[in-house]
C-alpha cells in the first residue's frame, strides 16, 4: 500500500479516537470536571496545542491530483496534503528575506513579491510552509514513540511490581542493562541497525526512553498491590488478570497521562539532537536547524530559517509543558481530594 493511503487511514483512526476520547470524557464526571478545569487554567496553551494538532492533521490528509501540472510533471502525480496545497505556488528560485520583493542575493525580482512572511530557504521553499510541515513530524515522533514506550513500560512495570520474584528480577535485569549503556550511543547504533526511517527512529527512541517510566510504574504497582481494595477484590474471587485490568491499571492513569505529556517534549528535543548528528527524520525542525547552521555564517546572514524552526519548536514545547503541568496538578490525587 502506498504511504499516503496509510497516512489517511491512520488520520481517520486518530480522528475517530479523538471523538471516542471526547465521548468518554463527557460520560464521566471526574473527567468532565478535569477537562473544564484544564480549560480554565490554561486556555492559551490549550489553543496553541490545538493549533499544532490541527495543522498536523491537515498535513496528514493526502490525495493525488487536482494540481495544475505546469512545468513540474512529476510532482503533479504525487499525493499532496491540505497544507501542501495551500502553499502550492509559493516557490522561488533562491533565498528571499521575510516579506522582500527581490531575491536576497542578486536582487532579481521574486515570483511572489512580499508574500513570504518568514522568507524562503536556499532552494526557494517558503519557510513558514517548512515550519508547518515540521509539526506533523514532531507530533509523529512524540506520539508514536510514546505509543511504543508507554505500553512497554506498563507491561513490564506492572508485571514486575505485581508478580514480584523472578519476573521482577528479569525486568530489573533488562532495565539496568539498558540504563548502563550511554543513551545517545545506543540510539545511534539502533537507528543504524534498523535503517533510517521515521518508524525505526521512533522505535530506537522508545527503547532508550521507557526505563524511567517503567521504574515509576513498578513502584506504584508495588504500592497499589497492597491496597485494601485489591485485597477485597481477591477475597471476592477476582482473577489476577482482572485485578490488574480493573484495579491497578485505572489507578495508574494519572501517571500515564502526566508521563506522556512530559516525555513528549523530551522526545521532540531528542529528535533535534539526532538531526544535528545527521540521523534525524526528514522534514523535521531538527533538520531545518541543522541546515540553517551553515547559513548563519553567510554574509549578509540568513537568519529566518533557524528562527522559524526554533520558534515553532519552542512554541510547541512551551504549550505542551504548560498543559502537562496543569494536567498533573489537576490529576494529582492529593489536589483532587482537597478540591472535592
Amino acid at each position, binding site marked *: 500500500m502506498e504511504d499516503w493511503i496509510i497516512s489517511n487511514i491512520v488520520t481517520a483512526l486518530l480522528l475517530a479516537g479523538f471523538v471516542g476520547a471526547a465521548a468518554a470524557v463527557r460520560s464521566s464526571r*471526574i473527567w468532565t470536571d478535569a477537562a473544564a478545569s484544564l480549560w480554565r487554567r490554561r486556555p492559551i496553551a490549550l489553543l496553541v496545542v490545538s493549533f499544532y494538532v490541527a495543522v498536523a492533521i491537515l498535513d496528514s490528509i493526502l490525495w493525488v491530483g487536482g494540481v495544475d501540472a505546469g512545468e513540474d510533471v512529476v510532482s503533479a502525480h504525487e499525493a499532496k496534503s491540505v497544507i501542501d496545497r495551500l502553499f502550492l505556488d509559493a516557490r522561488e528560485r533562491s533565498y528571499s528575506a521575510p516579506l522582500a520583493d527581490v531575491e536576497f542575493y542578486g536582487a532579481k525580482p521574486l515570483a511572489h513579491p512580499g508574500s513570504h512572511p518568514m522568507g524562503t530557504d536556499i532552494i526557494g521553499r517558503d519557510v513558514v510552509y517548512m515550519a508547518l510541515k515540521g509539526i506533523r513530524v514532531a507530533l509523529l515522533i512524540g506520539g508514536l514513540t510514546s505509543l511504543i514506550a508507554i505500553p512497554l513500560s506498563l507491561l513490564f512495570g506492572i508485571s514486575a511490581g505485581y508478580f514480584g520474584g523472578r519476573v521482577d528480577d528479569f525486568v530489573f535485569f533488562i532495565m539496568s542493562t539498558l540504563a548502563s549503556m550511554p543513551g545517545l550511543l545506543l540510539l545511534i547504533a539502533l537507528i543504524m541497525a534498523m535503517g533510517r526511517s521515521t518508524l525505526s527512529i521512533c522505535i530506537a527512541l522508545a527503547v532508550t526512553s521507557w526505563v524511567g517510566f517503567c521504574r515509576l510504574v513498578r513502584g506504584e504497582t508495588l504500592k497499589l498491590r497492597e491496597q485494601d481494595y485489591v485485597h*477485597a477484590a481477591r*477475597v*471476592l*474471587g477476582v482473577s489476577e488478570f482482572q485485578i490488574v485490568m*480493573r484495579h491497578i491499571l485505572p489507578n495508574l492513569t494519572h501517571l500515564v497521562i502526566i508521563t506522556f505529556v512530559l516525555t513528549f517534549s523530551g522526545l521532540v528535543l531528542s529528535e533535534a539532537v539526532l538531526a544535528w548528528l545527521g540521523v534525524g527524520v526528514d522534514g523535521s525542525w531538527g533538520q531545518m536547524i541543522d541546515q540553517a547552521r551553515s547559513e548563519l555564517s553567510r554574509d549578509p546572514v540568513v537568519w529566518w530559517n533557524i528562527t522559524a524552526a526554533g520558534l515553532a519548536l519552542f512554541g510547541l514545547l512551551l504549550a505542551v509543558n504548560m498543559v502537562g503541568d496543569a494536567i498533573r496538578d489537576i490529576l494529582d490525587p492529593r489536589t483532587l481530594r482537597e478540591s*472535592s
Partner: protein
Amino acid sequence: MSPLLEVEGLTTSFPGPNGDIPVVDEVSFSIDQGEVLALVGESGCGKSMTALSVMRLVPKPGRIRQGRILMNGRDVRQLSIPEIRHLRGHEIAMIFQEPMTSLNPVVTVGVQVVEAIQLHESINKARARERTIELFERIGIPDAADRFDVYPHQLSGGLKQRVMIAMALSTRPKLLIADEPTTALDVTIQAQILELLRELQRESEMSILLITHDLGVVNELADRVAVMYAGRIVEAGTRLELLGHPSHPYTQGLLRSNPALAQPGKPLPEIPGVVPPAEEWPEGCRFANRCARVLEICESEVPESLALTATQSTCCHAVARERQNA
C-alpha cells in the same frame, strides 16, 4: 447436621531466620449455619491470619502447613484455582476493617458492586444495577439511586462500610468473615453497622465469623466465642459462658480490662505486657509469662484442651489442676 465450616488443626506459618514460625498453631473451630462465631484476641495473635487461611489467601511467603478446612464438606485446601475463586465471594465473603481504603478510588461505588455481582452470576448490567440499588436500600444507604454514581471519596466512612457490606452480600454468601468491621468507625456508626449485620444475618440465615478485639461487639453479635492468644485458641464456649464464667486467665484478664465493666474511681485493671512477636513465643503455655496464676508446668508443657461443659473448653494447667483437686 454437619457444620458449615469446620477447621481442624490449622497451622499457618511464615519462614523465619530459624525455621518456620507458626502464626496460627493447631487451630480448630467450627461454625454451624446461621451461627455467629467471634474470634477474639489482641492484635498480632493470628485472628486475621486464621480468616485468610480459610479463604486460602495467606500472603506470601506464608503458607498453610497442615490441617483441614472443610466448607460444606469440601476441603478448601484441595480445590483447584477456579473452584477456590468461586468459593471466594460466592460462598465466603469478607469485609474489612478499613472501609476508607477498601474501595477502588477511581470507580463509582455502584459499578464496583455491579462487577462483584457479575463476577459470580451471568446477569446483564441493567438487572445487576437494579439489584445493586435494591441492596443499597436494604443496607440503609439513603438516596440509593443517586449514590450509585458516586465515587468512594464522596462517601462517609459509615456509608463506605455499608457499600462494602452490600458488595460482600451481593452474591448471597453462606459465610461472612467480618474482620474488625467496626474498628475504624465512630461509636454511633458502629452501633448502626452491628445492628445491620445482625438483621442481615437473621434474615438470610447466614453464618458470620466475626474477628474482633472488642468484647462489646462480641456481646452484641456473637453466639459462640473463641479466644485466641499467640496463634492458639485458648478458650471457646458460648457467649454467655465466656462472658459470664470465663475460666482461662487470659479471657478473665480481657474481660476485667473492659472499660464498660470498670469500677469508678479505681484504675482499670490490665494484663501486664504485650503479645510477644511470633518468633519469641515461649514453649509450653504461651501466656505463661503474663499470667497471674502461672505454675511451673506452664513453662514447659502445652496445656491440653479441657472440656468444662458440653460447649465450653479451655487450655490452662491452672484450671485443670483446680478441677483435679476439687
